[in-house]
């Protein structure tokens, strides 16, 4: 039997995206979280580091023992959970943003360079990237942190290194694919310069794949930074970083579960909404990638 032919014009990407219910919900939630992170310092009721010594481990207001002054309760040092979560959003998202941006920049540059170097070198480079890709990201991060020592900056370097290979791979394979196409071959014969070739012909064609990768890297980076914080290898207390807050809360899991559930929920919601948006972006930009 013959497959039905698609005769209508392809819809613009944003239309496809906006018709995706999950993606839209994800986008709204993500924007809300971003807004919180942006205006956090102004709407946070207290300084996230300030300790109300007499108000230790107060539950959130929906608990009968809750206190309306501390909307989401306090932690073991009497610090306001809501304020810490808001500042945490700012910190976590900022870090994630920087990490992904640097990783993408470096990755794209290496990938673009790789597409033009001599094939033996390229295949060697790509093997190394494959190795890094197949490597468990957390194991790699732990190995890196072990060499350069624990702490937030080092954890960030580790996560950047973990993220780079994805970008290298996508850039290199997309460029190579484009370079092998007939029109590029023809352009080359015309004597167009390589840079021009790259910016005018190749680049527009790899942007969609990069954007998709970028979105998913956000969730990976956020999770990895939080995981390192949780394992005590990343951000150190008293920093209001979600993973670190989660790890500090372990001691109180039985009698102050909100110190554990709230930062975890924040991480989860952020990752979930990024993934929803990522799915939507992927479907909208590149139907070929849709599995």
């Amino acid at each position, binding site marked *: 039997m013959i497959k039905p032919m698609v005769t209508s014009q392809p819809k613009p990407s944003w239309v496809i995206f906006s018709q995706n219910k999950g993606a839209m919900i994800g986008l709204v939630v993500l924007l809300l979280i971003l807004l919180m992170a942006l205006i956090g310092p102004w709407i946070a009721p207290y300084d996230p580091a300030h*300790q109300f010594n007499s108000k230790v481990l107060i539950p959130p207001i929906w608990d009968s023992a809750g206190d309306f002054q501390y909307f989401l309760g306090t932690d073991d040092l009497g610090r306001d959970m809501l304020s810490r979560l808001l500042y945490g959003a700012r910190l976590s998202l900022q870090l994630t943003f920087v990490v992904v941006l640097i990783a993408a920049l470096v990755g794209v540059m290496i990938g673009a360079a790789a597409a033009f170097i001599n094939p033996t070198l390229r295949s060697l480079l790509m093997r190394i990237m494959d190795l890094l890709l197949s490597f468990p990201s957390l194991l790699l991060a732990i190995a890196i942190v072990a060499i350069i020592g*624990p702490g937030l900056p080092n954890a960030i370097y580790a996560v950047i290194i973990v993220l780079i290979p994805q970008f290298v791979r996508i850039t290199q394979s997309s460029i190579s694919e484009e370079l092998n196409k007939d029109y590029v071959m023809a352009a080359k014969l015309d004597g167009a310069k390589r840079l021009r070739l790259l910016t005018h012909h190749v680049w527009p064609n790899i942007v969609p794949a990069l954007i998709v990768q970028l979105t998913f890297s956000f969730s990976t980076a956020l999770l990895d930074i939080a995981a390192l914080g949780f394992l005590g290898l990343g951000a150190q207390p008293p920093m209001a970083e979600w993973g670190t807050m989660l790890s500090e809360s*372990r001691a109180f899991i039985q009698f102050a579960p909100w110190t554990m559930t709230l930062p975890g929920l924040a991480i989860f919601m952020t990752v979930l909404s990024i993934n929803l948006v990522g799915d939507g972006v992927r479907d909208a930009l590149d139907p070929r990638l849709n599995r």
Partner: protein
Amino acid sequence: MIDKSNENNDLMINRSLNRDTYWPTTLLMSLAALICCSCTSDNSQNKRSQKDLLVYCSEGSPDSFNPQLVTSGTSYDATANIIYNQLVTYKPGTTEIAPSLAESWEISADGLRYTFNLRDDVPFHGSQIFTPSRTLNADDVLFSFNRQRLSDHPYHGISGGRYPYFTAQSMGQLIKDIRKTGEHQVEFVLTRPESPFLSILATPFASILSAEYAKQLNRLRQPEWIDSKPIGTGPFRFERYEPDAYIRYKRFDDYFSENKRVKNLVFAITPDAAMRFARFSAGECDVMSYPLPVHLRVAQKNDLEVVQTPGLNVAYWAFNTEKPPFHDAKVRQALTMAVDREAILQTVYDRQATQATNPIPPSSWAYNNSISKVTYSKRKAMELLKEAGYENGFSIDIWAMPIQRAYNPNARKMAEMIQQDLADINVDARIITYEWGTFLSRLSQGLHHSVLLGWNADNADPNNFFSPLLSCNSAISGNNYAKWCNNQFDELILKGRTSSEQDERKQYYLKAQEIFKREAPWLTIAHANNSVLVQPEVSGMMVSPIGNINFEGVTLEQQSVDSGTQGVTP
């Protein structure tokens, strides 16, 4: 047309498949069944008491099963009072010296000769590779000390050849000779009088190993097994160790003492305090080590048993007296007044500690009661700073130890509180912390302004606080992180160490504490209680002020179904 038939076909397949969903459903159901069939657990606590098995949730893996080779409390706990005995010991729960392997001893008038008379009825453990042919005698004592002392001893180089505690206490210089003066008699000859010597011999590094076992291992060409397959005289014999999981001991039925013990003892290694408490509250262990202050509060609220004793320890904030502005005693005093220690006691210790005034805890016989505690007053602190010429304030580092200890459960939290207090007197503090090994090595280099640290005594003698923490020698190479060297103070503690009369010693130490208070090289913060959590069916559990765990005399009561009352141990 084509499209329609497609749809039909699709629908057909879907419809027919729906009937077959029972396949994956069956798969999922059987999976769920597999999970649930193992969910039926019977009460593990009951099961344990039937086997006379006591599970202790311990805080880490031991580094070695020979306490001579290590300095960590975790390794001492797993060995010193379980597998081994020392010549002398502390009466359970106290700091009083009592006979153990030595039933009596004499000290010569000049304080240079200690003669110990050993018990002649002390058997060693046996194992698959070793059957002892004799009971303990003087050779075993000689072997245990000479291995650490003499570099030409055949066992000296085994397992790395380093004896950190022996070296740190300069025992090599102190002990001139050890002689066998009879089958069951040994004599220690010292180079100088050392009144804390008996206390020192009660510490884990002075555990007695079997010389006969060493010979046997030589024959087997496996000398290093002496440290990994331990043989001792203690109340329990070592059975098995699975690294990071558990240690299993069995009761040594021929033990020389009549003390009651459980038949099986397991150390369930659980490094994370939260996890330890979770295991304890779920009934997976009978005794839990190093509860956090918040656990104690919850336990007390829920009528769980907390066994507690004031510990021989101190938490302090040391000022690096070599670095300005801390070379000025006035600045140091001012800072001691600026910190609200009550709040620290409340928040960090959850009231499971007493505020510290002197470097030694009140339970010590050398404690100076006439020294009054520093009163918290930011106004006075400001005045003092003004007198010293620092009215505009300054910036300092506070180094906070990165690990949790009973005496300092959360140095970082403490540092944050001090930071807030200091901000009020215009002192800007930055909190610094490194991973523990790096932290210590940088401290010894004196890179810090001030540091939050603590000390747990290894033996009950007051000298164990003064010499290692505050003497001039220890400022050069040791634990004197205030880098404080006061000649008058140093002379007093040296006299306190060498004179043999306790009353005389006390006078020296009382004076030394006055100088300490005046010079304020530290802010003394707290003396924490040593505590363990204990399930109701456990009886006889005691905690030592020094902190070493001991399971002699600990028993489990059979929990009968009908009686809910906790009986008294028979």
